[in-house]
């Protein structure tokens, strides 16, 4: 739970100041610091970023009555429903975070002598 919460917090703060791809750096760093297995690392990276992106996107969607979400959904998916957009956003962020988390874990493994 600890790495997940840390990732949520750090990535959210980082993105206020840094470009979107800072999520990869943060996920990498957190999973480098602490993750049990590659799968767990991917899971933490994915869910940590996906949650942040989903919550923020969903809040924006609600606050703005979905005016833009509707238009963008039409642009991307030819439908007015924002569901796909609210799914693909965390999916994409999650994928970036997950892969970086996995890379963090694997990189750490190079430096640990203890066999897993």
């Amino acid at each position: 739970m600890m790495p997940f919460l840390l990732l949520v917090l750090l990535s959210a703060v980082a993105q206020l100041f840094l470009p979107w791809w800072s999520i990869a750096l943060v996920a990498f760093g957190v999973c480098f610091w602490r993750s049990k297995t590659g799968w767990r690392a991917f899971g933490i990276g994915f869910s940590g970023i996906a949650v942040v992106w989903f919550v923020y996107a969903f809040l924006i969607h609600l606050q703005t009555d979905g005016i833009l979400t509707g238009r963008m959904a039409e642009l991307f998916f030819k439908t007015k429903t924002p569901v796909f957009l609210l799914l693909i956003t965390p999916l994409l962020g999650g994928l970036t975070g997950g892969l970086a988390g996995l890379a963090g874990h694997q990189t750490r493994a190079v430096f640990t002598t203890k066999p897993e």
Partner: protein
Amino acid sequence: MKVLKALLSLLISIGVTVALNQPWGAIPALGRLLSPFEGFWQNAETAGYSSEQKISVKGAKEDVTILFDDLHVPHIFANNDYDAYFAQGYATARDRLWQMEFQTHAAAGRISELIGDRAVELDRYNRRLGMAYGAEKSLEGMSNDPVSKSVLEAYTAGINAYIDQLKPADYPIEYKLLGYAPEPWTPIKVAFLLKQMTQTLAAGADDVMMTNVRQQLGPSLTANLFPDYPFKEDPIIPVGTRWDFEPVKLPNPPPNTETDSSVALNWQSHDPGIGSNNWAVGPEKTATGYPILANDPHLTLSLPSIWYQVQLVTPTMNVYGVSLPGAPGVIIGFNKDVAWGVTNVGADVLDFYKIRFRDNRRQEYWHDEKWKPVRRRVETIRVKGKPAVVDTILYTHHGPVVYLPEDKPFRNNIPTGYAARWIAHEVDNGIKTFYLLNRAKTYDDYVTALSYYVAPAQNFVFANAAKDIAISPNGRFPLKWRDQGKFLLDGTKAANDWQGWIPAAQNPRVKNPPRGFVSSANQSSTDPTYPYYINWEFETTDRGMRINQRLTAMQNVTVDSLRHLQNDVYNHQASKFLPVLLPYIQGKDLSDPQKQALKTVRQWNYQQDTASVAGTIFVDWISRLEDGIWADDFPDNANRPLRYPNADRTLQLVTEEPTSRWFDNVQTPNRQETIQEIVTSSFRSAVDSLVKQHGPLGKTWAWADHKGTSVRHLIPGLDAFSALNVQIGGGRGIVNAAGRRAGPSWRMIVQTGPDVRAYGVFPGGQSGNPGSPYYLNMLETWRKGNLYELLYLKSVTEKSPRIQSTLQLTR
């Protein structure tokens, strides 16, 4: 093994992240675009917020207060003029940055920088037309005037103060979709924007087609079919108005004005959907006893909205109206004393001269019995992802040689080996006109303001609280011999040059005419008694006649009765054609559906409303009728473009010359077709085609659905940001000119008087952001033909429940 795994996972992670950080063809950088922290989500705006914001900006002289009302119109209160234009630049950029930059990029021939080599030919076309050359001349004109220069600098500084504060997350959404960033604003961009307007309104030309027509028909038939004054006309300056000036001597035409057109191509014609209405009703005809002024400019309906409403208040002015995003001041509007509006004149201010070069080096050209040097201007078109394209353009004293014989022109349309003489290449100071109008108090102020105006020539309508009304087709008009530039011109003869200008004071103008109103709808500026030549052909008079008939009949005119007139959908053209055409229809030749359609048309009241079926039939029929009469005589040929006589001449033909040879189809040598046959067969094919399109006659034939008015985003194909199939009546040639793509881009009515009241609407919204509640909020009001009261504040402290938020710009 561990190292390998680590490397592999790193590689995948970096690979995916990098891939999501860059665009793939037309697909934008998805990671960046979808990030809620910097992607499109950041462009979503909240509805109905009220706020007080203080922003510290560099460049203002003193603090400025901007109040935003419930339509998101900025009301700018500044202590000096510089700050007002500074704040106008700031507020406009805040709502319209992408649009103002994109439009000026387009005018400057810089679209290739954004979308790559697809746009190179478009960019080359704009540059060859001399847009950059013209913009530099305009900038020169504005910079030579200390007032205009200061306005331009203030506006520029305001835009840049806004741009400087932006983080990538704040960029308008179009930047994020197309993957680029805003650049600093410069004064020449204002000039480019004004050039673009000139291109829209005063770059159409039929010279090549007319030259081909004359070669085919000879001069006298050409003059007969393409007359210099319409069969039916009600000119802008009422017939009988006296010209109270001593005209200057007209230049003499050369003995022989014949030219060939060695060119296979032709130029863009005037777009008949682009035009406008305006009028002012004098005090004796209004309910309040003070003049009322109305204006609705028709342009290609686009989003972000063409116009941006603004109120500018300083110690020297308090003006409200619409501005063009990218140009300082108010273009159409009012202040407490006066109101004004514009429609396009359609003067012939673009002519083509055939250039004879000395040799293939093209260093010199023959003119006025001398070899004269050709100037070269190098244009560098930067291309996204490709090396820049360098284009050398040849300039003669006429203007740029738009295309040379060996060039493959863009747009299938352009005379090769011809130099373009175009009003947009003149030094001008057009923003001064609006600067003065914004502060005008009297009729004389209006006349003075107009004298600075060059292009695109406009019919400036005027009304004031001192109970004057006036109208003037106004711009800088070349002094021409009659019909000069109706056809291509021989560029070697000095007599073909433009020889000075019609003196500004002698531009057509009328003040307080006896009929009690003035109006314009792009028809002929004057009757043939005006001593100068402006053009041989103007927009058809249908809108003008309808407006004048209604205004003549109206008494106790109010804002609301004029609002009804702006939304009038009476098809005047149909009312002229149908009584003539219907008796010629041979009923025995019709099928049952055709008979049914004929019955519908016979019962029509000429209202081209949303549900009208007869209107749909008429519009389709009339264009087939024109094809039926003229297509055999003026066949479509890409190598030798021709044009038909206009609808007015066609009306004259069917009305007065029913046995004319033009009804015979010359492609059927053994038969002699008659007017009955053409009228009947065109009607039948119109009905058959509509049945094919919409099924049996009924609701599916409704005019609004058939027409499909749309208001489209400037990026082609961006339907998600557009309004499609807007249910509105009217169309081309109708007072409510809402056509398929063009229509009333702003409707305004101003009741002058001791306490001015004004109303307006445009089909879109104040914000250019598709994520804003103010992007399309006015569309429905526009569609229904209603208007908003425009909030005209007297002072910054005036309390109005309509004020929603405050923005303070502090130093």
